[in-house]
């Protein structure tokens, strides 16, 4: 058997959720690859690796999605992990990427898709994973901002820090996650409530804040590259607020976002 054939056969055997020892067909495959020792049959030898494959990846998913695991309980989370690893076996060199598809998997796969809180928790947890090691851009240079002429602002584009993640949730899953991660007691699942959350890497640590719907929408327009003037017009049109009242709000939002470090730079139209 060639080395390539051996590696393909082993890859199939080792990522199986079920024991090789207990399956005569796969035990026979193991016999073809390995020879028995005085204490372990070939199937027992390969089961050591197979068990480690599952435990290693379960540990990573558990750590990255701790609030989801808490909500489900250990056995149900293990069942989810098995189904997920079967559907999305690891393809990245880094275990950091292991859970990338879990939010979409939970949202689209029964029985987990029937409880929308689970998908919200998965999305919030993954946003924190992404924000943790996202690239860093220099912070917004306030001196440069002050020097921008007033007429240049409507066509200017505001660039967000790469760590900023926006989440429109059906439940306050961020609060639930915060409680679980900080060892605080939770009475039960939170009541459904539309929540607009930003996860980001602050100056000292990962953080999250909840925004009002209009601010969240404006941030989304800016993240998508819409020039400031057009972004404000779009959001103002759907808000029903007077222009003056809306401008006042926008000013307050920008002050807060700047203080939180959301913004990286202002790109002026040429």
């Amino acid at each position, binding site marked *: *058997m*060639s*080395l*390539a054939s*051996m*590696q*393909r056969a*082993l*890859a*199939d055997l*080792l*990522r199986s959720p079920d024991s090789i020892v207990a399956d005569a067909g796969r035990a026979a495959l193991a016999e*073809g*690859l*390995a*020879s028995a*020792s*005085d*204490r*372990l049959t*070939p199937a*027992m*030898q*390969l089961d*050591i*690796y197979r068990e*480690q*494959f599952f435990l*290693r*990846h379960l540990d990573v998913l558990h750590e990255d999605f701790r609030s989801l695991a808490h909500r489900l309980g250990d056995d149900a989370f293990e069942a989810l992990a098995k189904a997920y690893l079967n559907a999305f*076996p*690891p*393809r*990245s*060199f*880094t*275990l*950091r990427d292991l859970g990338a598809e879990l939010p979409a998997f939970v949202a689209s796969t029964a029985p987990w898709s029937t409880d929308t809180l689970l998908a919200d928790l998965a999305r919030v947890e993954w946003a924190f994973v992404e*924000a*943790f*090691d*996202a*690239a*860093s851009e220099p912070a917004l240079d306030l001196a440069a901002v002050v020097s921008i002429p007033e007429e240049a602002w409507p066509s200017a584009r505001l660039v967000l820090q*790469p*760590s900023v993640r926006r989440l429109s949730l059906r439940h306050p899953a961020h609060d639930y996650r915060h409680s679980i991660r900080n060892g605080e007691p939770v009475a039960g699942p939170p009541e459904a409530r539309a929540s607009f959350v930003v996860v980001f*890497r602050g100056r000292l640590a990962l953080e999250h804040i909840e925004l009002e719907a209009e601010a969240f929408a404006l941030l989304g327009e800016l993240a998508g590259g819409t020039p400031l003037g057009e972004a404000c017009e779009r959001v103002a049109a759907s808000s029903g607020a007077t222009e003056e009242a809306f401008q006042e709000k926008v000013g307050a939002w920008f002050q807060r976002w700047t203080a939180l470090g959301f913004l990286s730079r202002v790109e002026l139209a040429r």
Partner: protein
Amino acid sequence: MSYRARHAIPDLGVGVGFRVPHYEQVLDERPPMDWFEVISENFMVAGGRPLDNLARLGEAYRVVPHGVSLAIGSVEPLDAGYLSRLRELVDRLDPPWVSDHLCWGRAAGLHLHDLLPLPYTPEAVELVVERVKRVQGTLERPFALENVSSYMTYRASSMTEWEFVSEVAERADCGLLLDCNNVYVSARNHGVDAERYIDAVPADRVVQMHLAGHTDKGTYVLDTHSDHVCDEVWSLYRRAIARCGPVATLVEWDDEIPAWEVLAAEADRARRMRAEVLAGESA
């Protein structure tokens, strides 16, 4: 001239792995330690706290990257993206060598995230030798392969593990990271002579040694890095140092990680033992 002399491989003394529970203490207090090893993949990221921590660590200590995902023995092509990011990390750290494992871990487009042993065959030797040369060409840095713990015996193997390790190292002209605990674990699991293994490895190519604890599962020994180094592994380490000379040594502790003081004491023990053996050699 020996491999170590040709590449001016320094003896860094005795270090430990840089692990999360100790980050704050190490970075804030800078306790005495000869050097640190970091898991390469944990720092092959775009930004954020990992790179900040690495920069702070590098300000105070010598840091050597040790990879777990290169999959040098996989038949699938080397991952060019991975190598490029590893090169970035190497440029950032400027280490005296870079290491990974003599194993495979990728197949059928998947990463198994394990250090799977290779069959000890001429085909595997050819594959690894060719790939090590490409890795060394990309990294432009001395590259060392670590012997892994194993729990399976391939029917296809036609040589001993130490013959396989030696042939790969000689033909690829690379360094070796001799993990004394892995030698012990594999020897116990396969009923071979660990001392004979230590005696057979090309001593001049050993650029670093690893020490770690393991777990006895009854019918086999599992490489868990979750305990003190056992007496038998200390004995192998003595033998290895006597044979290889002053080689940088690292204590690994990755699970059930103890307080910094416990880990530092384990490194102290290695340092004393190493000094005793080397003093005996020179006497």
